[in-house]
């Protein structure tokens, strides 16, 4: 198939960016979106131009590194997948495809399609864990956990930290991301112990880092490649309210 890609080009964090259009011929529908981007980059190299910088690593939808806004949607037109899992068969011959970086104050652009998501790490550093040291823990089967709770914790734990929720949210809120971690750990007896403290610390850090408030538009849930549900936000709010009450 023959396509045109309109890509955001930006030299570095401080430069002003702009769109550039490139024509690509003979792209096979079976290739992935990033393989199409590889072809584009080989073409740019052949023309003596600088290739488009974008983040990616695992190319199987799990590392959370790839991050592109494609035709106005985080991770492109398909549902519950990341950009690296998107295939060209989802587009038509002759299409013009617009590719932009995540746009959010919390994730500054570094170059072209690459953004800085270290704010996510900082939120988790504030408390996205259970405070146990290595060794000296009880036997793994000492505390039975219901299959339902464990499965629901797993649903939340599948968050890949990609940032699509923030990029999609009109308030740039990181609520879905934070809720996924708070909820996972609050659902398990091991994590319950410090659940309230955790929720409070993570939300405080999120606010500090300039992410917006959640107004329950639910847009994040729709674009989340892992189908993380906004019911986790409700659980987060419960934990957070507990924290407020206890104060």
């Amino acid at each position, binding site marked *: 198939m023959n396509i045109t890609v309109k890509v955001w080009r930006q030299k*570095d964090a401080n430069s002003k960016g702009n769109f550039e259009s490139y024509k690509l011929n003979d792209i*096979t529908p079976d*290739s*992935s979106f*990033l*393989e199409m981007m590889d072809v584009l980059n*080989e073409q740019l*190299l*052949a023309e003596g*131009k*600088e*290739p488009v*910088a974008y*983040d*990616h*690593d*695992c*190319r*199987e939808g*799990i*590392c*959370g*590194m790839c991050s592109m806004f494609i035709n106005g949607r985080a991770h492109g037109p*398909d549902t*519950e997948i990341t950009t690296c*899992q998107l*295939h060209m068969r989802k587009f038509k011959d002759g299409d013009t495809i617009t590719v932009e970086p995540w746009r959010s104050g919390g994730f500054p652009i570094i*170059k072209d399609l690459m953004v*800085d*998501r*270290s704010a*996510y*790490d900082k939120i*988790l*550093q*504030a408390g*996205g*864990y*259970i405070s*146990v*040291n*290595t*060794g000296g*823990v009880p036997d*793994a*089967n000492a505390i039975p956990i*219901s*299959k339902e709770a*464990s*499965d629901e*914790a*797993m649903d939340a*734990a*599948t968050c*890949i*930290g990609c940032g699509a929720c923030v990029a999609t949210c009109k308030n740039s809120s990181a609520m879905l991301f934070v809720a996924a971690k708070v909820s*996972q*750990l609050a659902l*398990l007896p*091991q994590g319950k112990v410090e659940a309230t403290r955790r929720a409070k610390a993570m939300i405080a850090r999120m606010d500090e880092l300039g992410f917006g408030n959640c107004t329950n538009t639910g847009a994040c849930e729709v674009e989340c490649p892992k189908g993380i549900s906004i019911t986790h936000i409700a659980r987060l709010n419960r934990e957070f309210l507990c924290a407020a009450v206890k104060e």
Partner: protein
Amino acid sequence: MTTLNSKIPEGPLAEKWNNYKAHQKLVNPSNKRKIDIIVVGTGLAGASAAASFGELGFQVKSFCYQDSPRRAHSIAAQGGINAAKNYPNDGDTIYRLFYDTIKGGDYKAREANVYRLATVSNDIIDQSVAQGIPFAREYGGLLANRSFGGAQVSRTFYARGQTGQQLLLGAYGALNRQIEAGTVKIYNRTEMMDLVIIDGKARGIVTRNLITGKIESHFGHAVVLATGGYGNLFFLSTNAMGSNGSAAWQAYKKGAFFANPCFVQIHPTCIPVHGDFQSKLTLMSESLRNDGRIWVPKNKEDAEAIRAGKLKPTEIPEENRDYYLERRYPAFGNLVPRDVASRAAKERCDAGYGVGTGKAVYLDFKSAIERLGEDKIRERYGNLFQMYEKIVDENPYKTPMMIYPAIHYTMGGIWVDYELMTTIPGLYAAGEANFSDHGANRLGASALMQGLADGYFVLPYTIQNYLADEIHTPRMNPAEVKEFKDAEEQVKNRIDKLMNIKGNRTVDSIHKELGHIMWEHVGMARTKEGLTEGIEKIRALRDVFWKEVKIPGTANGINLELEKANRLADFLELGELMARDALHREESCGGHFREEYQTEEGEALRNDKDFMYAAAWEYTGDHANPKLNKEILKYENIEVKVRNYK
């Protein structure tokens, strides 16, 4: 010259680790604060080590090339992690896990290390549960297990098809906690470029900041490399795009021996290659072999008709299917180890029974769905089936999956002793980067176990035995130390050299060519002639690279082509060492199959008389041949046999 001393502790096998811990040196709490440890890599091995060192009170610097430690390649591991818990009461013991691992590795691993691994495997599961890892559970609330290849017990713990993700996020959580506590400082998007040695000891590293391009030095009283495997040498593999062998290779060139580089694992169940633009191969977890049955058509005409698109697999009746693993290996069936399953697939395809492009076999869930229902299968493998469908555009609940072997894991790596120390004092290697526990073939679900064993339960002890003598070494300021400045200079020169080639070949085009050479000559079936020819071709390609590679832009900022070129330059050297190692090993074992050495039935034929050793290669200069050192393997607790899965 360095001699190999594996430092195996005294005493009976089951007591060695306890004896070691009872007698090793420790660093007292007030001295720990004065000691810096560098950990390169934030995968399971690196993150667990860095977090544990931090908890103990050491000052840790942790490095990764991704934008966050959570994105290390370990995140992609799917199927599970082994442990000898024996929760299912099906006869598992520490000894059995040890035995299976040694046998699975075709008797090429060190007994004492593997026994320790099996011992601490149970602690890993306890630790992970305490961290809130949502492993699969039964309705009664206790942990569930599944089976993996090469074992007759169910000892694999799993979190859907995302076990690596969950374990890594656990270790990343522990790391985050230490970052918050100030014991660990994290350097994201930072690539190690060289190792710095002062007075014979590892003292730090030189890095490149991948955003600013800045070359910097970091001091450590000890350095741990947990930088993963080098499977990407083959261009197409199941590894993440950035996985590389460079840190290990820099260490090799500074004096760390590189062991068994030719032991590469080819995973039997990957989605087949679809075309020239393909950038990577996707693994379909081995856990699928619990319920999936592997087959090709019994009749060549059927295979031809399928390839021509005239026949569908679902139209082939049961009696015309060849479940070749069940036929050849009735005792283990579809759960034979990976090397055996991969070779059997290749054998069928080479003989003309392949489907798809001819290089594929079926993995069929029909009988499992009939037996258990579609829901049960969805619960067990839902995300894998979804992944398959997204890539191939076929519904595996309705039609069998197509799979083919692909490069997946490297058993070879930096040689380490019992303490995980390399031949350079103060330099350690952990996880896939070292050569230690898997011999010539790794069993499924054992890499996660090994990475976490190394990081949580081995290094935090063994490194203290070394650091106890380092408490009087003051922290160094690299800006004032000649060795650091020299190393920085060398790194800058290498980058300048790469930038100034200004040729007309792209990095990827050369890397793809290297991949083809490797697959053809150093792949699943190797011969003396093929390997010799391969070495010539790799050398010729290396010359092409250094004359013709094209890197646009500058080195003072983000330059993805430069990053790739730098890694490829090392692969072009490591590839030759791999081929040499394969050439010297005149036997077949595990993932290393030499066509000259096979039984009449086509099984691997070992030569224990001449090759019962780990080959540890020593760098002797860019234009000199590497020197072979041998660690003779002694089996005192296991009877060495011909591996038999029949």
